[in-house]
């Protein structure tokens, strides 16, 4: 049998429906693939063999008996381990939640199951999604499938690396300040951060609630769109979902002449090899009859400070609940006075998480609230307004996804500021709540480069049109040899 595990989600779905191969045959290959390559990349941290095989057999039976099957029938999908899966450990790659088994499914997980996708397991991440390299994981770092000496990016490193390494067809990640786009760019796959309020966050263990969204990672734009049709839309369990429809209707039209703005500050701020790629992407769009211009953004230089202030403030409060009284890890409170117990168990957080809790606590303290938190919110509002006026003139904005190429393990781990700096291009979309996608744009020294495309709120269709146009006019490898 051919290499089924290498197929895109769309190809898998078509093959299973047409009877070319069974879901079980495909899943067995996926599980073998994980066994073979995962020791090298460490993307999957929990494999649900039994659940995956059972679901595959169910899909096969449905097809045999001509029952109605869901649009994602048979597709192997991995879930970032900060998204709750009922009965399956959800750890956030933290010792704090080492033994935590959620009693409920996140809305996105339930929808994937309802649409007959097959969940193969949970994927690695920086502890509580705090990081840009997946080096801060209690399960150890995830390697870049293109060169295992390099980081996969983060925090959804497992989600991007597992797709690039063909351990699953598609995956879910979460993006608070670039956590989907960064690793997708580093691993040469497609990753989408949807508009804030398009996808339910119910069941996403929060890092910074006002910034983050769950989104898909896949090898192609159409795979990402396919997952969005299942996970997006109104949810009774999340009042911050702003749309009223249940399923978005994405249809492609590449005929319209797009107006494209290239963000100068972000493009020029990147490494030369990267900015060269972004300018040539602009040339490509121009040749495809799009109207392209370079534009300038005033508030870019404050974005990073604003982002980290807000994110850490929210994080410090979100992470308060981990006191190991109701759930967590194996350590009984017997014999402790409660203050002593809290102090003891909360020392179980990793260093990066502790750092962010401390900074977040500081910026929220009444003496500094106005100086930091309120100011950060003001910047956020101004950035939003600036983007809003830009999107009156342009359908999409393009920029690099990452200002640098993937880096080697340990290169930035000791310098938090250096690590924060790599998020400069991605945090803008989170602060403004607008959608952003990264698509593979080429390689430099065999290391991937991603093109970032942003659109106005709920204009995912425009993103997909542009991304598909770019994808179909370039031919960039998405499957590294492992």
């Amino acid at each position, binding site marked *: 049998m051919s290499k089924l595990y290498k197929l895109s989600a769309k190809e898998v779905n078509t093959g299973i429906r047409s009877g070319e191969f069974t879901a079980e045959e495909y899943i067995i290959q996926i599980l073998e693939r994980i066994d073979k390559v995962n020791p090298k990349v460490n993307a999957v941290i929990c494999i649900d063999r039994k659940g995956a095989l059972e679901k595959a057999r169910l899909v096969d039976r449905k097809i045999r008996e001509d029952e109605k099957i869901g649009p994602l029938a048979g597709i192997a999908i991995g879930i970032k381990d900060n998204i709750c899966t009922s009965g399956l450990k959800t750890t956030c790659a933290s010792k704090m939640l080492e033994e935590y088994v959620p009693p409920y499914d996140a809305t996105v997980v339930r929808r994937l199951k309802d649409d007959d996708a097959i969940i193969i397991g949970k994927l690695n991440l920086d502890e509580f999604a705090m990081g840009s390299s997946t080096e801060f994981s209690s399960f150890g770092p995830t390697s870049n499938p293109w060169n295992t000496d390099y980081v996969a990016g983060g925090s959804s490193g497992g989600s991007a690396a597992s797709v690039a390494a063909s351990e699953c067809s598609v995956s879910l990640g979460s993006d608070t300040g670039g956590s989907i786009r960064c690793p997708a760019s580093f691993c040469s796959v497609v990753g989408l951060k949807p508009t804030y309020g398009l996808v339910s966050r119910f069941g996403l263990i929060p890092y910074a*609630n006002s910034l983050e969204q769950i989104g898909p990672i896949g090898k192609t734009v159409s795979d990402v769109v396919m997952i969005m049709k299942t996970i997006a839309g109104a949810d009774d369990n999340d009042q*911050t979902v702003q749309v009223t429809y249940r399923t978005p209707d994405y249809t492609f039209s590449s005929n319209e002449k797009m107006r494209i703005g290239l963000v100068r500050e972000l493009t020029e701020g990147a490494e030369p090899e990267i900015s060269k790629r972004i300018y040539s992407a602009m040339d490509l769009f121009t040749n495809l009859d799009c109207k392209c211009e370079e534009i300038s953004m005033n508030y870019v230089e404050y974005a990073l400070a604003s982002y980290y202030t807000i994110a850490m403030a929210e994080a410090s*409060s979100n992470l*308060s609940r981990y006191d190991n009284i109701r759930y967590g890890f194996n350590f009984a409170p017997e014999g402790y006075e409660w203050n002593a117990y809290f102090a003891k168990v909360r020392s179980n957080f990793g260093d990066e998480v502790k750092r962010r809790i401390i900074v977040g606590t500081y910026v929220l*303290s009444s003496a500094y609230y106005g100086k930091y938190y309120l100011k950060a919110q003001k910047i956020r509002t101004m950035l939003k307004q600036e983007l809003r006026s830009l999107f009156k003139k342009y359908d999409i904005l393009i920029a690099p996804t990452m200002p640098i190429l993937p880096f080697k393990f340990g290169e930035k781990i000791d310098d938090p500021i250096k690590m924060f700096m790599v998020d400069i291009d991605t945090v803008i979309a989170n602060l403004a709540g607008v959608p952003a996608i990264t698509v593979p744009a080429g390689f430099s020294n065999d290391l991937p480069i991603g093109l970032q495309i942003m659109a106005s709120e709920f204009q995912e269709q425009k993103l997909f049109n542009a991304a598909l146009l770019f994808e179909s006019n370039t031919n960039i490898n998405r499957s590294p040899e492992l």
Partner: protein
Amino acid sequence: MVLMKQGDNEYPGIKIGLEIHCQLTGLQSKLFCSCFCNYHGLEPNGNICPICCGLPGTLPLLNKTAVESACMVSLALNCKIPDNITFYRKNYFYPDLPKNFQLTQYNAYGITSIGVGGSLKYGEKTSRIRRIQLEEDPGRLVYESGGVDFSSSYTLIDYNRAGISLVEIVTEPDFTDPKDVRVFLNKITSIIEHLGVCNTKRQGSVRCDANISIQGGKRVEIKNVGSFKEVEKALNYEIARQKTMSMHDIKVLAETRDWDDARKVTKQSRAKEEEQDYRYFPEPDIPTILLGEEYVSSIRKNMPELPYERKNRFIANYELSDHIAQVLIDNKELADFFESAVKIYSSPKEIANWIVTELLRYTDDDITEAKITSSSISNQSSSLFAGLKIDPKQIAELAILIDRNTINRNTAKIILTQIIKTGEMPSQVLARTDVLKIEDKIIISEAVESVFNAEKSAIRDAKNNPNVANFLLGKVMKLTKGRADPKITLNLIKTKLDGLD
């Protein structure tokens, strides 16, 4: 401790402010999830879900009816309702708090609470309401010993209460006398009862913290006052304590004190004295709630009748006096009782008088109060008429019997003393009127008086003849058809004879 004399509270510079917490017991579910609002009588931790337990990844889903209830309370207390409201996180660590932050409202960075700048008149005085906010109740800590004794070696946590909707009413420090506080709290009770948002008789449904300072002293906060009745006592105690301190030139320091319900004293709270920084910030998971004029006016239109409106209606429709109407509406149960009786027999003045001047003599507020606080887990609501077997239809029938001259008021009073014990209808008691024993001294005295008037010669002999008393007793028994209590009667006769000397 210093004994308080009446009027001692007219001490210069007493300032009292209140923080009143009312559970919105009229709701079906908790503030942010679908668990039951009424957790009484349920197994510990039998009324919880991933949301109110704060499990990772869950999101709060705001109960819209709770917003409506809080809006009604705000309107009843003459507050302004902002066009939009938001929720804030109040961050602090405590084991009864599942998320280690409480969802509440906060006005420091702009007005976002459901009500602001209100006022409430009580008698001739008015107290300003600073703000009204909607928030969630924490869980409940249960100590080994069963009480709130910190010396227990272990603590149990029951999250059944976690996430129950609370309305917090914060007053300005406008009170100068604990007595006024009691009147004010009664008023608040009647209002929330009339709105149907809070059953104040349900255990733990209303709590009050008070802060108090006297001239020259710092502000002391009294917490853990389990019922409105106790607030006045706690404040009186605290005033005496602070005055004694200042008399001895001891500075009153800012501190938090707990009310010890058993010993009726305040004592220093175990909580640390340093100012807590709650790191308030807006809750990102609950979008801003838009209210606006249309919303507020529709709430106002559909609001139940408020106590003062009811009072005006009682005066206008039933021609009750201001005083009688006031007494009735001060307690919703009483007003409801009155109206039920009037529905059965339309003699409002007669019925109101029977309720206010007679029936109320048999209700003991303190006993009722004790019942509420002593039953630790009670599913029952303690009624004003607890222990009495009284129903509106009995009072209505009493009024009928009087109106038809079947009985006079004195007989009616006797009947009342019986029916509140047995639950019988007055007519049933009347049917076996021969067993009706007269124990009322006033009625017996009247009979004695008339016998004395008729038997003037016998009374003249009384000094020399010890049998006269028994003779007169026989006369009284004859007059009352044998119903007068002989012991009481004989005593009255003897007293009266002795008085003649």
